[in-house]
């Protein structure tokens, strides 16, 4: 009986550098160039108000990236991301405005605080199963609402507080980058943050940590059986997601310059859910696309409410003609998005892309088969 399994040294099985690997480097350089152009070119093309909206999209994308790790990789359905965003926002607003903390120090503090709180939440969460976890995360939102309203000396209570802290590091003011307006500068800063975190998230996905988390997502018991420390990875996922959320909170506060408890409530939590569902929950790109599409769409509608078709369809105020009040429309839109996406493409936009890829690949095969068949027939 001839050996079936050949050794690695057999030239027939040794992996050869395929052209695909070379083109991979080209692809990466090209992607980096595109991203750089977008990052620096967009501020030159759009007006300030659009850039402001896009900067908010970045903040939401950042918050959603935390969910990509927690829910997408590790499969933990937590609704409490706005709580950690709120913690980051209030910490930076208070210490930045009242005590003049430097923005770099604030970033470090906020990330650490978010991580610690997230780890604590994780400690509680490891004992809970899916539905209980979801409900306890709702409890965390409720607790956040109480805290942000009650601790008036720090948070300003229900009227909120100023978050106009300085963004200077050394001599560089992040809100006034050389030659740029405030909106332009903040656009660059926020999307740079998204880029960095997205790269980290992508790296995690490819490492052991990512695979371990995905194993936990698929079948917790089996993961435990093969030796994955489920507890540690769950707590780690929570800590990481919360740290990212807290960072998003700092940027949110810097953008809006004023924060109130309503910014971190259940509606925001559902908005995040819509973002990761629409974009695709298990890839960093999904968080970015979801934020752009969902939040961007919501904002676009809000600012175009006076023009066609919205002025006819929506009523801006009581007594205005229209099918639906404008505020209800946004709720309606978010809900409808969730329903439509979940029914037709539960993997979101990223899944849509994957499906397109498979379809294109299958066309290729079909075309090839047809050609081979034709060749066969004519020969």
């Amino acid at each position, binding site marked *: 009986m001839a050996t079936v399994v050949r050794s690695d040294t057999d030239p027939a099985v040794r992996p050869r550098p*395929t*052209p*695909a690997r070379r*083109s991979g480097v080209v*692809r990466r350089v090209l992607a980096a160039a595109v991203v750089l152009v*977008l990052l620096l070119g967009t501020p030159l*093309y*759009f*007006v300030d*108000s*659009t850039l*402001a*909206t*896009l900067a*908010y999209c970045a903040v939401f994308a950042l918050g959603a990236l935390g969910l990509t790790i927690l829910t997408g990789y590790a499969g933990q359905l937590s609704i409490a991301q706005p709580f950690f965003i709120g913690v980051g926002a209030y910490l930076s607003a208070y210490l930045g405005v009242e005590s003049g903390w430097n923005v770099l120090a604030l970033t470090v503090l906020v990330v650490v605080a978010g991580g610690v709180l997230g780890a604590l939440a994780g400690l509680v969460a490891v004992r809970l199963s899916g539905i209980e976890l979801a409900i306890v995360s709702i409890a965390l939102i409720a607790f956040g609402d109480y805290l942000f*309203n009650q601790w*008036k000396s720090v948070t300003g*209570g*229900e*009227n*909120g507080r*100023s978050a*106009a802290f300085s963004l200077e590091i050394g001599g560089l003011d992040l809100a006034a980058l050389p030659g740029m307006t405030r909106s332009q500068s903040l656009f660059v800063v926020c999307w740079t943050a998204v880029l960095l975190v997205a790269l980290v998230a992508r790296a995690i996905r490819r490492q052991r940590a990512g695979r371990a988390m995905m194993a936990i997502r698929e079948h917790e018991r089996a993961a435990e059986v093969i030796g994955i420390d489920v507890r540690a990875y769950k707590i780690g996922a929570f800590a990481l997601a919360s740290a990212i959320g807290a960072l998003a909170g700092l940027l949110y506060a810097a953008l*809006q*310059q*004023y*924060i*109130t408890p*309503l*910014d971190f409530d259940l509606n925001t939590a559902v908005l995040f859910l819509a973002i990761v569902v629409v974009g695709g929950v298990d890839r960093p*790109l999904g968080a970015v*696309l979801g934020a*752009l*599409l969902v939040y*961007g769409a919501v*904002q*676009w509608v*809000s*600012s175009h*409410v*006076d023009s066609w078709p919205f002025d006819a369809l929506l*009523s*801006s*105020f*009581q*007594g205005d003609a229209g099918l639906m*009040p*404008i*505020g*209800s429309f946004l709720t309606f839109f978010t809900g409808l998005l969730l329903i439509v996406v979940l029914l037709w493409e539960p993997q979101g936009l990223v899944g*849509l*892309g*994957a*499906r*397109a*890829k498979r379809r*294109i*690949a299958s066309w*290729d*095969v079909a075309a090839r088969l047809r050609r081979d068949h034709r060749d066969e027939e004519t020969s």
Partner: protein
Amino acid sequence: MKSVTRSGKRRQGRPVAVTTGLVLALTLAACGGGRGNEEAAAESGSLAEVPGFDGETFTVPMLTVTSGPVAAAAAPNLAGMQAYIEQLNAAGGIAGKYPIDLVVRDTEYNAGKAAQAYDSVKDDAVLLGNVFGTPIVQSLKDRIEADQLLALPTSFAADYVHHPALMMTDAPYETHLLAGVDYAIGQAGGDPTVCGVGGEGALQETVTQALDYGSKEAGYTVATVVGIPPTATDFTPYVQQLQSADCDVVGIVAVGEPTVAGLLAKASQLAYAPQWVGTSAQFVASMQDSPAFDYIAENYIGIGATTTYGDVENGGEAMEKLVAAHDEFSPDVPPAYQFVGGYAAMMAVDKLLTAAVENGDVSRAGLRETLASFEELDFEGLAYPWTWGEPGDRVPPSKYLVLKPTKGAPGGQTDVERDLDVPDYVVDYPFPEA
């Protein structure tokens, strides 16, 4: 199959890239570019163009609430404002020549959304016709000041009286609360125990401070101030707190009608009947068909500075015009107190812009100057006037009226006493400097 694998790999990133490209293209198309497309302001006609005035029309944005639970409170106010503007535009506009374009934006009573709404309208605004809600005004006032804009707040907090960027048209809570408590004590005779109720948080604080001041100046005892959270659905504990403090007069400043209605209804169920004194802004006509109406009519009075809708005897010609405006432009809106308030606020805007047009300067600085030159903010009988002047010299109306819930009356209430003098110590209330 090797070639398929290779080409399959090559295409791996593409569909994702395609999707990204599509989304970005959509974003680009939707947002439009336009940097550097802004038109330079040009001199034309007799009035220089400024942000919010293009030579023909004044653009006046309104940051109000048209969705969510607060929308019901904001609606009559907005309707009143719109009715005035439409009536004005039908007659040609400011000075008969310049119509006003109202741009209504929903803030959803959320400071975050308000900030974004403000950003989207501030560059094309001659002034802000309305900013509705204390948290919204709080979050925006510094930016409004920085942008040198003027805004009319529908919020009656003490800080706004002397604020240079804000133009209050109705009396602050403190004035009406203290005047009302004073009135109720006078009616009750003897030495009644006074208590307060406020929406948990800032309003509770307002009530506490105001009653503190009042008790020191007028010598009455304040037993307790109860705070009610906005999410409360059962008001038993709050009524119990008032009952156990033996309150005879309760001044109430809350955010919305549901809270007031719920509290009073529960009090009637628990057979507790102090003299309730409210700042009448809360009393909406819809309480008329509440099962607790009789109790409310019996035990609640509202304090206001605005003439009741339809009261032509006291409101004169201006009231006739107001009723006509309501019937023509917003007949479906119930004619509540706030309708008159909104209408009167726009009357002030009309006077301001007319005077500014006469002075030939409708820029933001020009408007401020013109405004500071007014000695009085007069509403032609629709509401009691303010003493005006520089921001630091403003004094809230020195007269008030007492409203009683009345079934079938427009707005659900009628004034039972008018032209009462606000006590001196209340006129002298130390509103904070800007």
